[in-house]
């Protein structure tokens, strides 16, 4: 006698050990003996470091006060940072003129947000304003000397403000030079090509410190005596040269990714070299390299700390100088953690933004 079961028996539920929290734990943390050992080591590390770090930074830290005596608990003394925050942000800029710095940075913040957010109207006009008018406005706001604004000498600039100024000016001036160098490097004219190659490889081959040394020590020798260049401008010139070489390599990467057919099609339409480049190739290439540009900007932003070696007071230098205050000795860890978190938040968010762009702009060019 045969028994035919025509209706399938219902599926057994998966064993408890392979689903839910237990299943996840088994799969991801305790898959094998070595794996479990590693997990335990990891847990031990976290147990050793995270609670004490959190305790120090938050739970037993002092937040309010105005003097060293207000830091009575054993954790971090954020009072040190709070008391000096104005100096950390603005350096030795006169406090009556802070509004100028704030206005200038808010303005550029609005402009950049306008350009980055999708679906805002009149992007072209705003971009033109940012590139051509904003620098002039910013110059008079920061430096003064016109419209009744008193002059603030550059040696009073400092702190986060100086860091941002160095990074953004370095970036915006380096981009056009970098594009020209990249075009030069891919040019068919042998002399233009070799000059670009030598320029790029020279600046990429030396450390930024030697470039800064060179610009601070040698520029006064290279230029006529009557041209007095101040320290900030000298550092900026060095940074721009250095950065433009890196920018050129990023742009070159974009140019190489454009298929040959695009060049040939443009040529077939009878477009000249400059028209081919500015209407066909560069718009596509620059779009591709935006993430790369953001990455070099991050690198530059971190590298601006080096200007403290030639005596400019950027954020790190101002904080470092504050440690020497006899009333606030022994708070270097707090100071470093503050600077580190400023840099970390900025760099991390920028790198996330660049990754997001990379995904969004991936429209099938990259092979």
């Amino acid at each position: 006698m045969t028994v035919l079961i025509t209706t399938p028996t219902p599926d057994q539920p998966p064993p408890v050990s392979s689903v839910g929290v237990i299943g996840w734990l088994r799969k991801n943390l305790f898959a094998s003996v070595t794996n479990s050992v590693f997990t335990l080591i990891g847990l031990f590390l976290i147990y050793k470091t995270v609670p004490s770090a959190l305790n120090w930074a938050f739970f037993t830290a002092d937040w309010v006060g105005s003097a060293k005596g207000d830091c009575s608990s054993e954790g971090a003394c954020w009072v040190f940072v709070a008391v000096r925050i104005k100096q950390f942000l603005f350096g030795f800029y006169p406090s009556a003129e802070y509004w100028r710095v704030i206005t200038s940075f808010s303005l550029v913040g609005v402009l950049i947000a306008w350009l980055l957010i999708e679906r805002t109207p009149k992007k072209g006009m705003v971009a033109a304003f940012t590139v051509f008018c904003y620098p002039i406005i910013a110059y008079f706001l920061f430096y003064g000397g016109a419209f009744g604004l008193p002059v603030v000498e550059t040696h009073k600039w400092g702190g986060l403000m100086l860091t941002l100024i160095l990074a953004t000016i370095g970036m915006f001036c380096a981009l056009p030079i970098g594009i020209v160098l990249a075009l030069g490097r891919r040019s068919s004219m042998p002399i233009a090509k070799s000059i670009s190659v030598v320029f790029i490889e020279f600046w990429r081959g030396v450390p930024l410190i030697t470039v800064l040394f060179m610009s601070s020590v040698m520029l006064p020798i290279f230029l006529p005596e009557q041209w007095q260049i101040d320290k900030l401008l000298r550092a900026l010139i060095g940074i721009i040269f250095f950065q433009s070489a890196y920018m050129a390599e990023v742009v070159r990467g974009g140019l190489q990714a454009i298929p040959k057919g695009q060049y040939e099609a443009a040529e077939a339409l009878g477009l000249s070299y400059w028209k081919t480049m500015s209407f066909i190739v560069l718009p596509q290439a620059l779009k591709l390299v935006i993430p790369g540009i953001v990455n070099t900007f991050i690198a530059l932003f971190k590298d601006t700390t080096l200007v403290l070696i030639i005596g400019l007071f950027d954020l790190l230098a101002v904080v470092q100088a504050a440690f020497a205050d006899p009333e606030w000795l022994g708070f270097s860890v707090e100071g470093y953690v503050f600077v580190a978190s400023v840099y970390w938040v900025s760099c991390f968010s920028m790198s996330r933004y660049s990754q997001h762009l990379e995904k969004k702009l991936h429209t099938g060019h990259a092979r």
Partner: protein
Amino acid sequence: MSNSSKKQFWWNNAQYRSLFFQVLLIAAVAGFFWFIGSNTLQNLEKRGISTGFGFLSQKSGFGILQSLIPFSDSDSFGRTFVVGLLNTLLVSVIGVFFATIIGFTMGVARLSNNWLIAKIATVYVEMFRNIPLLLQIFFWYFAVLRTLPSPRESWSAGGVAFLNIRGLYLPQPLFGDGFAFVGWTFLLAIIATFCIKRWAKKRQEETGTQFKIWQTAFGLIVLLPVLVFFAVGSPLSWDLPSLKGFNFRGGMTIIPELTALVTALSIYTATFIAEAVRSGIMAVNSGQTEAASALGLHRSKVLKLVVIPQALRVIIPQLTSQYLNLVKNSSLATAIGYPDLVAVFAGTTLNQTGQAIEIIAMTMGVYLFISLTISAFMNWYNNKTMLVER
């Protein structure tokens, strides 16, 4: 245009035009250099600075904190250059060593099946990559190493190594008379292993017989020198550091500047190496691994013969450029006073002699030479391992 359309203007001819542009370019560059050159001559004359490299043989008159070759203040400025260069190379080599180890470990850990380990590695990479290197150097030097105990209360590891605010004190090996034999045996063993490996590979290709190369290599490179070492009567002793008065005497001292610099450099560079390793491994198509398993290769052979060679093609170029960055970043030493090339030569020597042009040119020349050599190697490697598409 009014003239006949037959006539071609020279600026419409691509060849002439490119010639014209290039002549213009050369003129501009030449003019630029002439401008700089004439200004420089004028300025130098006004300041009374003589040009030339004669200063290199003058007496330096200053001491250097750490030197790999004997150096005193009666040595020449030329020797300060060598001392600085050697210190830069020392930092770079130690930094590259540790950065590679940490970087590879973290890169592999980020791809681990273990969720916790992967997350810890991610946190490490994201944390240290986004903080400026100079800040990290300062942190290790001023916030960590400056808070170490004084020599009297130093931390001790088994009574042979000591750590205190003055530095890290390690036992120094003293090589006896016969030790050269051990070194030579070691060297010969490496050469012999290399030859045996080539022979074994050739034999395997011809006959298919495998040769136990790893066991042979271990025996030759490790066991043989050890045997020789004991045969010549263990000619090695250790000079232990010991507390005499206020400080340690004897042994090897690693100055805190070096420790801070190496720690920061390796931790920072390792984050980038970890990313390179991760991207390299991820770039190997999973079909490759599956195909290798389908062929019946053992898991270790899959890694060794299929995954790693392909991953290296992606990893090596990024790795070399990170090594290069490490060498260039070691110049940050000057900020904490470690006597590297920039600190000693472009810093102290420049201040003492005022020969800015020569000194900056020599310093930049050294870094340029290192970078160009490494990129030449990289190009050679890229060409050698490039995928030949059919």
